[in-house]
């Protein structure tokens, strides 16, 4: 927990509180652990790295960011609302009949969402397509794809990795949310990915390990991308599922939670309010 407190800044707390408020005011459900895991990854991308225009979400020369682990969408919705892609009041429609923010993000419904994801193993191929398309245009626009570690069980991720490596897509950066927990248990017991960095290297990527909750470290690593001018980059972001609150931190019961109670909401908000 000391590690956690060292990295949690006001921005990280604010975004996590927005996630809890979303659940509180809407369907009382969601992949809370998965969302808390990617808060810093998303906030650094949207605060410091990506070029975009929330008033013109389909601006052609924008950078593309795909949350391929679509179940972490609560964090994406919090940041998109924060950036003005849509009004914050929309968050209370999460998974609700009259809302447009579903349990997984949809391209045609949500401004700022670049691809509909939810079924794992789709986002990287779409991202490779974005990067190849930018290359045809000789455009400097870049593509960022956030993968889950459990998602890397999917063969299609590695088909896409082969393709990205073959084309030396240096405009493509993957951020793997390596919290080492999937739905049933640890990644080591369900489907071990190690040696993970070596696998990416073997597929033609330049690889770096980074603390996925350390915004300074993330910012620094992302600003250095492409890590190799002739290769796609992958940042293996070492994270903790449910990071940010002692209640959810590393607790698989919060991977996907339904019927979240008033008491749990209060406890989560309290834990996130602590300095």
């Amino acid at each position, binding site marked *: 927990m000391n590690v956690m407190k060292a990295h949690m800044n006001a921005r990280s707390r604010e975004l996590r509180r927005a996630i809890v408020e979303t659940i509180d005011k809407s369907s009382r459900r969601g992949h809370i652990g998965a969302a808390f895991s990617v808060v810093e990854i998303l906030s650094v991308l949207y605060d410091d790295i990506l070029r975009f225009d929330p008033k013109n979400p389909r601006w*052609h020369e924008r950078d593309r960011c795909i949350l391929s682990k679509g179940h972490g969408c609560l964090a994406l919705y919090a940041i998109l609302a924060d950036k003005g892609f849509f009004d914050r009041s929309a968050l209370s429609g999460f998974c609700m009949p009259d809302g447009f923010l579903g349990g997984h993000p*949809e*391209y*045609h419904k949500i401004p700022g969402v*670049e*691809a*509909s994801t939810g*079924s794992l*193993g*789709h986002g*990287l*191929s*779409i*991202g*490779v*397509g*974005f*990067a*190849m*398309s*930018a*290359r*045809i245009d000789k455009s400097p626009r870049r593509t960022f794809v956030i993968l889950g570690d459990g998602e890397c069980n999917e*063969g*299609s991720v590695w*088909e*896409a990795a*082969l*393709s990205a490596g073959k084309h030396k897509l240096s405009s493509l950066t993957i951020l793997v949310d390596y919290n080492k927990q999937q739905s049933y248990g640890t990644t080591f017991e369900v489907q071990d990915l190690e040696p993970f960095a070596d696998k990416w290297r073997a597929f033609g990527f330049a690889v770096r390990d980074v603390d996925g909750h350390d915004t300074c470290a993330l910012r620094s690593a992302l600003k250095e991308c492409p890590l190799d001018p002739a290769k796609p980059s992958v940042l293996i972001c070492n994270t903790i599922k449910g990071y940010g609150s002692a209640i959810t931190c590393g607790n698989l019961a919060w991977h996907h939670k339904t019927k979240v109670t008033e008491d749990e909401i209060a406890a989560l908000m309290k834990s996130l309010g602590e300095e």
Partner: protein
Amino acid sequence: MRKTSLNMVYEMAKKDPRVVFIGSDLGIGTLKNFKEEMPDRFFMEGVSEANIIGVAAGMALDGRVPYINTIATFITRRCFEQVVLDLCLHNVPVRLIGSGGGVVYAPLGPTHLATDDIAILRALPNMTIIAPADADEMKRMMPLTLDIPGPVYIRLGKGGDPLVTTSLMEKCGLTAKTGKALHFRTGNDILIITTGIMLKPVMDAAKALEASGIQASVLHMPTIKPLDSKTILELATRIPAILTVEEHTIIGGLGSAVAEIISEAGNLPKIKFKRLGLPDRFPEVYGSQASILAHYGLDTKNIVLTAKGLVQK
């Protein structure tokens, strides 16, 4: 038909910078001219259909019109979820050119027989399905695919299929249009509805039936989805028997689509109805496309017999 289809992709790419081509691991020299003249828009991405569909979706979301070609089974079954989500859910203009629709790859066995492609793709929102009868029709239809806003599946025949459509189009004064049925023969005893390369044996059967005193209408459906239900229903109001003929499993294809339309119409007179297609089992035999079709009764002789039986029922 495949050669014509791919050559049309090349011709369209020369004129339209949105067009890109993606193959899996096609035969050596495929679209050599495309690769040489427009290398930045030609891709051969290996035996990885799921990735190819996703990559094409990404390009299409970016404003391009990717044409993908590989064997029909692999471009439909192998990457089905990518087709559903990456293409149909996003409703992007990706074109799937499926080589060997039906039983073209007869000698290669069930792994290569695309006998369920129409059924599985017909269930998908936003998908257009076209199945030309010959190379001439392919040449007429390919340019029509360019500006369809959503995904399109283009079902290819074997190649060297008999050329039947051009003379019929001219004789009947018809022009090619996506989603439009082609009424190639008029008769009031039975309506035979078909698609793809089955048009030729159906036309031959209609001629043979005439010699037996049975007047058959023939309706060719180069577009299976969206299906021209208006034309089917117009004919169904005045023709008492309908026979569908397709190189596809009896479940879920053209025959099923026609059955759905006429059974829900409500105001039709009583219609005698029969579907001819492949039975609900994996083909047990090898041989040639023609021999498998004949084995399962998808030849002129059996179409005539079935039509007679239906009319005289």
